[in-house]
Every structure is written in C-alpha cells, then in structure tokens.
C-alpha cells in the first residue's frame, strides 16, 4: 500500500464497528490521529460475539506491521497469539475499552462498565424510591460489555434498592425495533412495572420507543451511552437519565498513548476514561457535553 517509512501507522481493532459507541471511539481516535499526522485504521467485527472475526482482523492488522496497535479484545485468551506476534515484532500495544489480561499491552485505556451500570442502578432506585419491579433490556448476553453492565446494574439494585424486584433480563441485540418490542411486552406483562433500563444506545432507544408506544408515561427509563435520541429524550424528560462513558475520549487517549509510547515516553499502565451520570439537570454542563456524542 502506501509508503510506510515516513508516516506513522496506528491500527485500532475494536469490539464493534456499526454501533454508535464504536463510531464515537473511532471519531475521537481519528481526531487525535489527524492532529498528530498519524494514519489510522479502525476495524471491528459486525457483532460483539464474532470473536473469530475479530481475531482475523487483529491478525491481519498485525500482518500489516503498523507502528502501534490498539485493541479492544472481545476475548483476551483468543487474542493472545496475535498479541504475542505483535510483541515479537516490537509493535507497541494499547488495550482499550476493557482490559486484556496479558502483560503485553503497555497501557489500558478503559472504563468500568460494571461501575457505570451500578451508578445507573443507584439512580433507578432513587427514581422509584427503592421498591417495585424493574425491567432490563440488555444488548448482549455473552460479551463483556453486555454482561458487565447487566450484572453491575443487578448488583446496584441489590445494594441500593432492597425492595426492588428485577424481572427476567431480556436481550434485544442492541436492535432498536427488537428492543422496543421487548420493552412493550414487559410493560404489558407487568402492569405495575416501575422502571426500565437499556444497556446500550440501541437498547435504550428501543426501551424508549416501547414505553412511548405502550402509552405509559409514569415509567422511569434509564439508558446507557448517549446519541442524539437519548439526549433529546432526557431533555424532554421522557428518559430520566443515562450513564455515558466517554468513547471519544477513549479513542483520543488510546491513540495519544500509542503515540507517546512510540516516542519512547513513559505511559501510565491504567488510564480510566471514566463515566458519568447525566440527566435533565446537568445535561448542559461542560463535562457532560464533552462526553456525550450525538
């Protein structure tokens, strides 16, 4: 391909591609890359369950001999081989989104999904003052982001809402229409449902639609991630609030860390991009505005 000598190439292999969260990561990374005149490639499997697809992408990325590599591993174990190869080729590796249990990555730019979801649970319990049924529409049943957020939220309910009963968790593949149908069914099936939680943007919007269509206005709806629809829903009060991570920041920091590593600078082992709760009150604050993507 291109002349490789002069330009620096950084390859990011992400957990996903099409979902808005990953697009936001991509935007942040691209911005940082452009500012530093770095050539960036960003790839991710169609679904967060396509572990093999990701390994193949990772393998191909390594084969391209980038100057640095960023990886959001769907499964650390599966990535091990390719990581070893990258290591032996002397390609610095930065892990992002979630840790890779391996000592090859120089740094990990991540956020704690479980803690974020727990935060959401805390607000949920406040909203429904600690009692009643809560439904969860998760985006994935197996992948880390899916399970961490689900379990974090459940743990949160345990902790903050003694009287809260969580319904059987349902999964909508992050597909808005499917999630909407699920939410509708939940609302119908449980007349005295108090609140609903969607574990990523697609699920959250789906829940929102489902509730809207079911005509209920008294439900506490909490989302995850951002995106225009959620932000607007929060402004209009249809959605009580949501936790968002800072995907663009995550992208930026991943690239920045890689560049620093290439420059031989000392990099922190653990960089937490954090998360924050936002609702109608704080939505216009700067740090929220910086965090949310539209």
């Amino acid at each position, binding site marked *: 391909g291109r002349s490789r000598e002069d330009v620096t190439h950084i390859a990011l292999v992400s957990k996903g591609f099409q979902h*808005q969260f990953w697009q936001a990561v991509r935007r942040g990374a691209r911005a940082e890359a452009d500012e530093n005149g770095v050539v960036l490639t960003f790839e991710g499997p169609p679904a967060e369950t396509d572990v093999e697809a990701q390994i193949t992408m990772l393998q191909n990325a390594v084969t391209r001999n980038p100057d640095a590599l960023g990886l959001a591993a769907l499964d650390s174990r599966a990535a091990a081989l390719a990581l070893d190869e990258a290591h032996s080729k002397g390609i610095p590796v930065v892990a992002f989104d979630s840790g890779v249990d391996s000592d090859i990555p120089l740094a990990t730019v991540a956020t704690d999904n479980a803690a974020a979801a727990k935060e959401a649970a805390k607000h949920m319990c406040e909203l429904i003052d600690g009692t009643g049924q809560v439904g969860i529409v998760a985006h994935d049943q197996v992948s880390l982001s899916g399970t961490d957020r689900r379990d974090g939220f459940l743990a949160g309910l345990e902790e903050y809402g003694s009287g809260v009963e969580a*319904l059987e968790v349902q999964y909508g593949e992050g597909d808005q229409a499917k999630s909407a149908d699920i939410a*509708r069914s939940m609302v119908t099936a449980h007349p005295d449902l108090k609140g609903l939680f969607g574990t990523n943007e697609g699920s959250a919007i789906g829940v929102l*639609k489902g509730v809207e269509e079911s005509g209920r206005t008294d439900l506490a709806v909490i989302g995850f991630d951002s995106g225009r629809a959620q932000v607007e829903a929060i402004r209009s009060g249809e959605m009580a609030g949501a936790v968002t991570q800072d995907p663009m920041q995550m992208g930026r920091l991943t690239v920045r860390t890689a560049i620093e590593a290439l420059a031989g600078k000392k990099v922190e082992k653990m960089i937490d991009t954090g998360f924050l709760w936002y609702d109608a009150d704080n939505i216009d604050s700067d740090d929220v505005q910086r965090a949310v993507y539209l």
Partner: protein
Amino acid sequence: MSTLAASPAREEAGTGRPRGPRRVRLQQLLAAGTLVLIFLAFSIASPTIFPTWGNIVTILYSTVVIGLLALGATFVITTAGIDLSVGTGMALCAVMSGMFIVNWGIPVPLGIVLAILFGGLIGLINGVSVAILDLPPFIATLAMMMVASGLALVISGAAPIYFEAPSYMGFSTGTIIPSIPNAVLVLALAAVIAAVLMSRTLLGRYATAIGSNQEAAELAGVAVKKWLMIVYIVGGLFTGLAGVMISARLGSAQPATGMGYELDAIAAVVIGGTSLSGGRGTIVGTMIGALIISVLTNGLQILSIPQEWQDVLLGAVILVAVFIDRLRRRAERTA
C-alpha cells in the same frame, strides 16, 4: 364436457369442479388454525395479559416490518427464487429515506415514495443479476445483501439519520383509526394489494408458472426474463416500504440494522405454506406465517421465558407448525 362426463372419473367429476379453489381456502383456514391454536395456548397461559387488546395491537405492530418483507419475498420465492437482500436492503432504504427527507429536504410524502422506489431499484439490480446475468438468486441477493449493508453505512456516514417531521413518524405511529397504529393499516393494505397481485393478475400467474417450470413457461410464450425482473422489483418495493416503516417507527434511519431480518421473512413465507421450490405462493399464508412468528415471540416474552429458552422454543414450535402443515397437505392429497 362430454368426455369429462363419460370418463371413469365421473363419480368425482361433479364435486370436482369447485374443489380446487375450495381446497386452497380450506388449507389456509387450517394454517390459520395453527395460529389460533398458538394464540389460545398463550391466552390460557397468561389469561389476564396476553389476549388483551393492547397486547394484540403490540403483536400486530411488531409484525409490520417482517410482514412487509415477507410479502415481497413471497413473489420471489414463488418463482423458485430467494431474496437475501431484504434485510440490509431495508436498512439502506431507510437511510435513503433519511437522505431524501432530512438531508435534501424533500417533502415527506415525496421522500417516502422515492425511498420505496429506491427499494424497487435494489430489486431491479437483483432482477438483472438473476434474469439477465442468469446468476443463482441465492448468491446474487447474498452479494446484494453485503453491498446494501455497506452502502447504508457509507451513505449515512455510519451514523443514524434522525427525522424531524412528525408527519413521518405519524406514518407509522399515528392512528387514523383510533387505537390502531397506521403501520398496521399500511401492512393490511399492502397485504391486500399483494393478494390481488398474486391471485388476480398476470404477475402472480407468470410468477407461479416460472416457479414450477421455467423452460416450459418460456416456450409457452411467457416473457420469463421480463417477468422475473418485475417480480424482483416488486419484492424490492416492499423492501423499500419496510424501510420507510421501520425508520418511521424509530424516528431515525439506523444504518446498522437489517441483518437477519431476511431469514425471519423467508421463515414467515415458508411457514405460510409457500414452497421454496417455487410454483406455489399464498399471500394469506404468508401473513399467517408472519403472525405465527410474532405471536410466538411476544407470547414467550409475556411469559418472561428466559431468552435462551425462547430461541429453543421458537425453533421447536416452527418445526411443529410446518410439520402439521405438511401432514394436512398430505392428508388432502390422499383425500
């Protein structure tokens, strides 16, 4: 009908004439029977919630998109073809609808029409691949499936397109008839049109003929290429409409959705009794098939069955449904 009278078949001949049409009606009645059965089962399992009007509307509403895709697929499958591009094609049409209405500011009604026509364009390309280039429908539409999902991302910049005009959302969520979302009316109307096309027009006849023996149809003077193209275009138009309906429901065009919808649509068609080997298509059946799927999905969710078991049960029930359908047909053949 002198010989008919004279033939050894005389005994039957009398009852014979009206039998054909009636047989078909009977069969669809029975297919509906399977649906009713499932419905009753859930009603017993959850008497207070499942059979309520509200939930029935939920079910109908959740049938719209798959239903529309299945309607289009019925024509294609009747010609012994298949269209795997309906899922991502739908997403692409939704995105185009967004481009037309949001980005280019084309008035909503026109934008909708254009989006539907764009679906027809996708169908046209499929039609050319199949009819002119003589490619196997499976592979031709599989390729289109990939191309469409890619283009949806490219055109939308991999970001959802949000619709502003309430009238657009109203096209799906509004209620011209109280308590019945327009989307359901759209589906009903589309089904009626499809039924007429299938059973009352040349399109349906020729699609069936092509499906049961393409060479024979050709030699009998049917313009096979032309009609194959038309069939795929019609399929594409339904895809386009589905794209409009789903984006109208969500208030945004989601470039990344659609994958997997094609299998549900085809499943609906087959459960409805249309044969994948062609020559036999029923619109009523397709609608019943689509309803069977969404009733099952909804019912299992209402009973809050764990997700993983839902898939298992869904699969099992579909098997049983189709098996019963088979038994019934065999019974008819030997009755």
